[in-house]
C-alpha cells in the first residue's frame, strides 16, 4: 500500500473539524483524484499526506513510513525524498531562477552543487523547460511556472506525487497539457499520484476518483 489513512481527524484552532475519521488507501502506481467543493478539506488531506501538517488523531502511513510518529528530522527527510508536491500556486522562490528553484530540494538534501545542478537541468529538460532555466519566476507564464514546479517535485525522484489543484490557475488548454503530463508520469514512471481538485472533469485522467464533502469521503467511482 502506497498511502494508508486510518481514522484520521484534523481540526483547526477554532475547533472546526476539517477531516473527520477518514479511512483511505492508495495502491502503488495508482492515480487517484480526490474531487470535492472548495473548503471540504482536500488541501488539508494532501498537506497531511505530504507531511506539511500533522493529524490530530489516527494513523497515516506513506510508503511504509508512519508519518504520525516521525520526528522533525525524519519528517523533513520524508518530504524531501518520498513525496513530490505540486501546489496550486506553484510556490516558486521569486528570487531564484527556474534552475535554482528545481535545485532547491537537492541542495536541501546536501547534494553537491554540481550534482544538484545536473539533476535539475535534466528535470527541466524532461518538462520541456530546459531553455528557460535561467529565467526568474516573474519572467514565466502560468503553464511554464507549473512545469517548473513539476520539475522541482520530481528532482529527488520520489515514488509519490501529490498535486493540489495543479490546473486551478491555468487556462483549459494549458491545464489539460499539465494533466496529460502527470498522467504520463504515472503511466511511464510508475509514480503513485494523488491529485485533489474541485473540477469533476479532471477525474477522467485518474484511474480512480474519490468524492469528498465536509471532511468525509462520500464514495468512489
Amino acid at each position, binding site marked *: 500500500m502506497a498511502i494508508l489513512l486510518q481514522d484520521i481527524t484534523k481540526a483547526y484552532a477554532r475547533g472546526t473539524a476539517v477531516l473527520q475519521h477518514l479511512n483511505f488507501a492508495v495502491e502503488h502506481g495508482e492515480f487517484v483524484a480526490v474531487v470535492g467543493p472548495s473548503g471540504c478539506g482536500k488541501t*488539508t488531506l494532501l498537506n497531511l499526506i505530504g507531511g506539511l501538517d500533522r493529524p490530530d488523531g489516527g494513523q497515516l502511513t506513506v510508503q511504509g513510513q508512519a508519518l504520525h510518529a516521525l520526528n*522533525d*528530522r525524519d519528517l*523533513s527527510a520524508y518530504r524531501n525524498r518520498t513525496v513530490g*508536491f505540486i501546489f496550486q500556486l506553484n*510556490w516558486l522562490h521569486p528570487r531564484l531562477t527556474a534552475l535554482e528553484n528545481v535545485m532547491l530540494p537537492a*541542495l536541501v538534501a546536501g547534494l553537491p552543487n554540481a550534482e544538484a545542478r545536473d539533476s535539475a537541468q535534466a528535470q527541466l529538460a524532461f518538462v520541456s523547460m530546459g531553455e528557460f532555466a535561467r529565467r526568474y519566476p516573474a519572467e514565466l507564464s502560468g503553464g511554464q511556472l507549473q512545469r517548473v514546479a513539476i520539475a522541482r517535485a520530481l528532482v529527488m525522484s520520489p515514488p509519490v506525487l501529490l498535486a493540489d489543484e495543479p490546473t486551478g490557475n491555468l487556462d483549459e488548454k494549458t491545464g489539460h497539457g499539465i494533466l496529460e503530463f502527470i498522467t504520463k508520469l504515472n503511466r511511464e514512471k510508475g509514480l503513485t499520484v494523488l491529485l485533489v481538485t474541485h473540477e469533476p472533469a479532471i477525474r477522467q485522467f485518474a484511474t480512480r476518483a474519490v468524492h469528498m464533502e465536509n471532511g468525509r469521503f462520500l464514495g468512489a467511482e
Partner: protein
Amino acid sequence: MRTGQRLYLIRKNLGQNKARTALACAGVGIGMAIFLTALALAIGIQGNIVKRLREAMPERIISVQRAAFDLGPLRLPTQPITNADVEKLKKMPEVEKVWPQIPITFPIRAEGNLIGVELTTDVIVNGIEPALVQSDVAPGKTFAFTMDPKTPVPVMVSRYLLDMYNLGYAKANGLPELSEKWAIGRHFRIILGESTLPALGNDQKARAVNCEVVGLTSNPALLGVVIPSEYVRRFNYEFSPQKPPQFSALHIKLKPTVDIDAFEKKVTKMGLRPDSQRELIRRAQFFVKILLLVLFVFSALVLFVAFSNVLNTFSLILLQRRFEIGLLRAVGATRAAVVGLFSGEAALLGAIGGLIGVLIAFLLSLLINVLCRKYLPALSILPTDQRFLVFGWPLAIGGMALAALASVGATLPTVLRATGRQPAVLLRHE
C-alpha cells in the same frame, strides 16, 4: 543541509536583496561605529589618563605637611615638622616607612640657557629619599647622592612645572613649548647662597653647582625641584649650620591592609595635614570614572537602539519571508537547517555591518586624535603619545564578532518562532 549548500543559498539571498542587505548593514554599522568610538575613547582614557593619575599617586604612599593657620590666600605654618614627628610616625602600626622631605634653608638661584635665551630665577629646592621617585627616573639616568664633585647633581622636576611653563610663560613670551623628552638630560646651574631678590642678600660663600634633569615626576606633593636628600643635608650644613634640621613634608608608606582614609584622620589629629593635591587627584580619578561610566552607558544605549532596529528590521523581513521558510520546510529542510540558514545570513550581515562600523570608528579615532593633537595644549596629564582614542586590533575583531553575534541574537527569536510552525501554516497565509 551542508555548509556549502547553505553558503550558496545565503549568497543568493543577500545578492538578490541588495537594498535590504545595504540597509541592514548600514544600521549595524552606524550603531557599531558609535559604540566602538566611545569604547576607543574609554580605552584611551583608562590606558593613558587614569594610568598617569595612578602613577602620580602611588598606592599606599601619602604625603603630609604641618597643618597651617589658614586665612584664605594667607596660610601660615604654625611650627615645622621635626625629628620627633618622624619618630612618632615610624612607631605607628600602620606605617611601613617614613621619608622626610628636607627644604633648602637658604636662597638658591638657578640659571641656564633655554632655547637660546639666558634665564635666571630663584628656585625652591627640596631633598627627598631617592626611593620615593625611582619609578620616575628616566632610563639610563641615576637619582642618587655621589661624593664625586664633578658629577652633576641629579634633579627631578615636577611635570606640573613644565605645564606651567608651557601654558603660561612660553605662551606669554612667544617661546616654543617644551616636551618631556627635551627636558630629560638638560644641564643647568644652581647658585647656592644667591637670590635674584636683593632683599634676601647674597652669601659670601656663594658657589655654583652643576645639575642635570634625570626625570620628571607627577607626584603632586613634589612641586618644584627635588634632589637627593643627602645633598640638601650637606648644603644646609654648609650654608646655615646653626639651623636645626626640619622637614617641609613627610612621605609615608603604609602597610598593605591599612585604611588610608582612617589613617589620614589619625594624622590630622597629630597636627599634620594630608596633601590636598592628593584629594584633587582623587577627585580627578572619580571624575574620570564617572566619565567612563557615562561613556559606557551612552554607547551601550546606542548599541541597544541599533540592535533594536536590527531586530525590528529582521522581524519585518522574516514576516515577508514566511513563505520562503515554509517553502524550504516543504522541500525537506529541517527546522535546524532553516534556523542555521537564517542565522548564517544574519551573522554575515552583522559581520559586514561590524566591518563598516570598525572602519568608520577607526577613521573617526584617527581624526579625533589629529584634532586633539592640534588643538589641545601639551599638558603632562594628557597621553605622551597624543593618542586620546586607542583603536587596536582586539577592538576591531571584537567589534565585528559582537556585531555578528548580536545580529544572530536579534534574528533568532523570530526565526525560531517562524520555524516552530508547520510548513502548511506558513504556506497557507502567504
